[in-house]
């Protein structure tokens, strides 16, 4: 007889929650898959009823069977200058492109797709549920009623129809290199379509047009977890995000170079992530800021300078920092000076090295430090022993003859400039015992990543070492003085009155906050006539556009209205605006463009 099964459900619950919280085991966004399958389900239900009716009358059934045998789903037809990428006949999953001339595809006999020159798309879907994935360019679609469904997908959203005529265009902002700036512009010529975005679903009727902005954003933060094909990043506000590699448009092929880049990231290391929503948050661009390659560090951290690349006048001391290294088992006994973090080699990596406390363990530690950008460690000390030195890996180390507070940036740079870090890194010992007339152990350091600085070692409790250190950073350039609002001196006089009309009053400025919050939600889709104000820092600009990134939102690119007048004024305002500066933009949406009508510097 089988024993009754007993299960500790509370333990199981905790196990599941830990898998979720620590391992990132969460449900992906299934809404798209459920939508697709629910529409297929409806079609199946209709088929089932049809079959049941047919079974009731043999004669009718015979004719239906004959009809089914005789009927073949129409093959795709292509005409004009369309090319299948990789060659061969047009098949589902194929990518097609047009060069300088237009082309036409007829899919399933009921969807006529006209491709404009310079269009790139993939053909997918199933019989009577045709789909195309538009990556670049523009298509016009004419779908016969009551035959099947037709869906156009883009990186920003999708349009699903049952029978109508409409066109879809993927629009890039001027100078846009990343998908984040791509938008989907939908114009309905007859009937109505349903446009779906990650923000919601909208009906767009004939004569109307709508633009869909992709959901996405930029997160500056720290890698707190990583796994097989994902990373979790905590931003400066403490919010955590899980990111996956991007998939190729319309496919399930993941971005393998990005997966490889995940493997190089260090837990605790700072990163900048540009992401978009593709059923989950997926990464468009990832910058590992450990080696100071991206020159962008989390708020409050000025970039540590490679002093050899800056004039000394542009360098200054960064903040004085303190750290305690703990040589006890389980303690953090390593330090990364550039990123102000302490760490310990993961226990699992000790592996067989634990069996051999000597060479193998040191080799494992060295390999880990090189990979993770760790600069120095407390070595060879038991839990209760006094720490005698700090071991730096591949760093240039020189004894300083003055106190930490008295060191001059120019002197430090001069002493370290000519001695590059070791290309085949070896250990350099920095004794804790005072070696200078000041009675303090102060050293000038140049890390393997060319961070210049100084460190003071202080013996603390047994098994621990206290450090005080400062790194040299690049001095921020002072912005030129500006007046508020942004000067319009160059604008023609006739336009000044027009511009005055857009000057916000105090009340309007107060209302601007309301207007902005109104736009937070429906942001995914803008309609002709939409207008309002957006507030945020300038993240990019050129002569005829400016990009603002409101807090926690995607960047929004505003263009200059054409035809002079306000356009000239806005051009001048953009010219006088600086990247990083907070501004408020009064805008209106029309003809697929979000146009800036006035720009005011934030109070």
């Amino acid at each position, binding site marked *: 007889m089988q024993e009754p099964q007993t299960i500790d*459900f509370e*333990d199981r619950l905790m*196990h599941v929650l830990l898998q979720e919280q620590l391992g990132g085991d*969460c449900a992906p*966004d299934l*809404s798209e898959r459920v939508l697709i399958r*629910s529409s297929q389900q409806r079609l199946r239900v209709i088929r089932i009823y049809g079959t049941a009716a047919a079974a009731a009358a043999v004669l009718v059934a015979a004719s239906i069977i004959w009809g089914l045998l005789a009927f073949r789903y129409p093959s795709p037809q292509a005409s004009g200058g369309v090319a299948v990428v990789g060659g061969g006949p047009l098949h589902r999953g194929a990518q097609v492109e047009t060069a300088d001339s237009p082309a036409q595809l007829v899919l399933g006999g009921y969807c006529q797709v006209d491709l404009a020159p310079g269009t790139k798309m993939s053909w997918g879907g199933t019989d009577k549920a045709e789909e195309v994935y538009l990556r670049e360019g523009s298509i016009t679609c004419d779908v016969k009623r009551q035959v099947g469904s037709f869906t156009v997908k883009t990186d920003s959203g999708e349009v699903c129809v049952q029978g109508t005529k409409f066109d879809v265009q993927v629009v890039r902002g001027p100078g846009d290199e990343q998908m984040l700036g791509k938008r989907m512009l939908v114009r309905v010529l007859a009937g109505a379509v349903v446009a779906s975005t990650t923000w919601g679903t909208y009906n767009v009727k004939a004569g109307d047009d709508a633009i869909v902005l992709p959901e996405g954003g930029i997160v500056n933060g720290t890698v707190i977890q990583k796994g097989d094909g994902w990373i979790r990043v905590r931003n400066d506000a403490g919010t955590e995000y899980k990111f996956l590699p991007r998939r190729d448009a319309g496919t399930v092929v993941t971005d393998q170079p990005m997966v490889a880049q995940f493997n190089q990231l260090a837990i605790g290391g700072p990163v900048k992530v540009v992401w978009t929503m593709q059923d989950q948050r997926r990464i468009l661009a990832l910058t590992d800021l450990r080696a100071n390659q991206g020159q962008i560090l989390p708020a409050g951290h000025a970039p540590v300078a490679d002093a050899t690349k800056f004039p000394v006048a542009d360098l200054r001391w960064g903040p004085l920092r303190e750290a305690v290294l703990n040589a006890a088992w389980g303690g953090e006994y390593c330090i990364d000076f550039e990123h102000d973090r302490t760490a310990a080699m993961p226990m699992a990596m000790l592996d067989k090295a634990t069996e051999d406390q000597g060479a193998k363990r040191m080799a494992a530690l060295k390999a880990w430090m090189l990979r993770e950008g760790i600069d120095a460690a407390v070595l060879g000390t038991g839990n209760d022993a006094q720490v005698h030195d700090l071991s730096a890996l591949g760093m240039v180390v020189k004894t300083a003859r003055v106190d930490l507070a008295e060191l001059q940036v120019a002197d430090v740079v001069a002493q370290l400039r000519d001695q590059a870090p070791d290309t085949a890194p070896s250990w350099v010992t920095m004794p804790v015992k005072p070696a200078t007339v000041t009675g303090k152990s102060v050293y000038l350091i140049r890390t393997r990543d060319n961070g210049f600085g100084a460190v003071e070692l202080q013996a603390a409790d047994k098994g621990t070492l206290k450090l005080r250190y400062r790194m040299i950073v690049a001095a921020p350039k002072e912005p030129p003085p500006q007046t508020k609002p942004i000067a319009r001196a160059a604008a023609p006089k006739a336009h000044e009155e027009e511009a005055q009309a857009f000057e916000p009053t105090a009340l309007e400025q107060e209302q601007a906050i309301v207007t902005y919050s109104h736009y937070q939600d429906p942001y995914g889709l803008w309609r002709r006539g939409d207008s309002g104000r957006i507030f945020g820092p300038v993240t990019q600009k050129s002569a005829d556009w400016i990009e603002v990134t409101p807090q926690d939102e995607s960047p929004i690119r505003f263009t200059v209205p054409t035809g002079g007048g306000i356009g000239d004024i806005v051009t001048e305002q953009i010219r006088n605006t600086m990247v990083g500066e907070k501004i408020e933009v009064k805008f209106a949406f029309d003809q697929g463009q979000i146009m800036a009508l006035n720009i005011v510097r934030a109070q």
Partner: protein
Amino acid sequence: MDRSALVQLVRDHQAGVYRFLRFLGADEHLAEDLTQEAFLVACRRDLGRAEDVDDVGKYLRGIARNLFLAHCRKNRTSPVVINSELAEQAQGVFETTFLRHGDGDDYIEALQQCLGQLPPRQRQMLDMQYAQKKSREELAAAAGMSCDGIKSLMRRLRAALARCVNGRLGVVTSEERKQV
């Protein structure tokens, strides 16, 4: 049910249904498939008429539970929960222990705080198992313990976390009641 209502329904409840299926013993892929299936079943029954269902989450969990049991019967797999009686019991525990605290949000917040309080070594062991997905053998080698020792250690850690969470939420467990 129209498309927007269906999308909203899925987004509101997918995390809860998936978590419940994992709790019942479904692996990641099965939990994902059955979560999707549960919404399709709900969609067929036109769950859009919300007035027919008092607790949509509970209704979806019921569908998910039945789908999971049907899957187990069909595939003769032997996950943690294998019969309808235990599945029902599991659903009860899930709802009374976890969901009654702000639909689980308060429970998770308390768990995160408790994780933050763990001593470094214990946290490292949890990270190795759950974040780095190391095998029990790897954990045992790293900590210099036997595999059984690791199993007990992990169980004790989970129990300690559960006590910490209950403490934060002001929950008196049956064990504590007995002691009183």
